[in-house]
């Protein structure tokens, strides 16, 4: 077995006295969809931010495709082929969906026409072909989530970090976006995704990591995770595992 595409080793990040991420390690191998779950405030988004260069970690190491990227700026990490999306969607409000996606596409080309064509292709992939001329601010929640995905995809990443792309969507929309994400993986992009909703993860991820209070408490297949007493307690409270078993 070769080295993992993304290797996170003993990563820590504190804010004041709070250890938001505490010596976390994880691996993502090429071609996988890996889930990262955990209750609210577990530190998932902080971990993402530390991996993608938005927070400088206090300790630990991040390597992408064998290269140490710890402490690099977000734009350098993006250029290296790893891009993140935001849980709270950040559309460029005053410009069209097409122009939003083109910003991502411009990472790989300075040519406007090529960027435009790339934006249209990506919009097609995520099912936004009909909304190219809408303003970023005119999109629904589902539309914004797709736009986050599209912009990130337009940078031609090899690893995509998705932060709760399904939060706030209704069941139909979730089914749709799950299909989109599967399609992206089939096109050769490796995916690490944060999800709050367990079911969403089980339908996508081969492997799941569970973060609780800044620490990695479990790793395994979705099925094994769902039966892990520590995980159940993290979600439902102390003693819950025993009650459920009874």
């Amino acid at each position, binding site marked *: 077995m070769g080295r993992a595409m993304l290797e996170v080793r003993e990563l820590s990040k504190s804010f004041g006295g709070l250890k938001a991420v505490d010596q976390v390690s994880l691996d993502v191998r090429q071609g996988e969809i890996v889930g990262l779950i955990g209750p609210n405030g577990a530190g998932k988004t902080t971990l993402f931010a530390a991996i*993608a260069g*938005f927070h400088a970690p206090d300790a630990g190491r991040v390597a992408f495709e064998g290269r140490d990227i710890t402490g690099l*700026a*977000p*734009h350098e990490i*993006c*250029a290296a082929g790893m*891009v*993140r*999306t*935001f849980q709270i969607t*950040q*559309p*460029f*409000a*005053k*410009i*069209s969906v*097409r*122009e939003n996606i*083109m*910003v*991502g596409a*411009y*990472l790989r*080309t*300075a040519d*406007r026409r090529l*960027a*435009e064509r790339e934006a249209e292709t990506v919009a097609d992939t995520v099912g936004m072909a009909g909304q190219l*001329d*809408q*303003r*970023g601010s005119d999109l629904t929640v589902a539309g914004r989530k797709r736009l986050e995905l599209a*912009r*990130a995809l*337009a*940078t031609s990443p090899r690893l995509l970090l998705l932060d709760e792309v399904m939060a706030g969507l209704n069941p139909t929309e979730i089914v749709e976006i799950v299909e989109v994400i599967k399609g992206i993986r089939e096109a050769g992009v490796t995916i690490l995704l944060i999800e709050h909703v367990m079911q969403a993860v089980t339908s996508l991820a081969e492997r799941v990591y569970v973060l609780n209070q800044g620490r990695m408490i479990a790793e395994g297949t979705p099925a094994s995770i769902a039966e892990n007493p520590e995980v159940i307690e993290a979600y439902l409270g102390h003693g819950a595992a025993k009650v459920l078993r009874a």
Partner: protein
Amino acid sequence: MSLRALLGLVGLAVAVVLPLLAPNYLVNVGMMVFFIAFIGQSWNLAGGFAGQTSFGHVVFFGTGAYTSTILQVTYGWNPWLAWPVAMAAGGAVGWMIAVLSFRAGLRGSYFALITLAFAEVFRILANSVPFTRGGLGMLIKADPRPINFQFRDPIWIYYLALLLCVVSILIAWRLTRSRFGARLVAIRENEDAARALGIDVFAEKVKVLALSGAMCAAGGTFYAQKYLYIDPNIAFGVDKSVEMLLVSMVGGAGTIFGPLIGSFALTGINEVTRWLASVVPALKNVQPLSLVVYGIMLVLIVARLPDGLMGLFGRKPRHA
């Protein structure tokens, strides 16, 4: 887009032909319209497209005016040759201010305030260092020959202002169709998202400030050559900063024609209020009346027309 281009060409033709028939007074007003549109556009590149609102853009204007005037008066340079040097100086000051402010992480109103502070520092310096002749100001010897960047017939300075304005609009137009421009808009709309999508936010902001500074400095030299006199208050006074910002905001910040439309509107108001104050006795003591109207207009625009007068033209999301 082609309709707009056509409108632009018709407007340009009118702007070229009309002054041949108009009295000198109107030619002078037209010169001011295009000149202010030009320096407004320099503000608009940084403040409108990239969202880096500056309150002290006059620092570039004054740098340009003083650089070319000192080269000319003290060192005997030809003003046409001093012009590009003045632009380089403005660009360098823009670069320096951007590096200092953005490295310190200043954004939004903090950036606006630091630029205001820089402009004030430059004004005070110009008042006290010997090579600017302090508060006495600098007088350029009148010698109206085109080789001296001075013209006997005001129509030539008018045409020069028109040319500057057209060039500035072409720069803005080019920007909206380039990767650099797309990145600036992304930075304006959301810096974090821009960063995540691979944009070196710091570098792009420094670049646009340098460009904007160079353009604004070109306006400074133009102004010095037109009036043949500058002093620290003219070259670095806060009112010019306000003017640049105002024409862009009124016309539509971040739009190609915003500064020009804003400049038309504000210069028009300026002339009308001046005339009103001279004929209506009750308004005689409200001086300058134009500032009162500007203020009211700005409040209305900010509250009702966040896209400026350009917003009146039903601005759909542009097709890139």
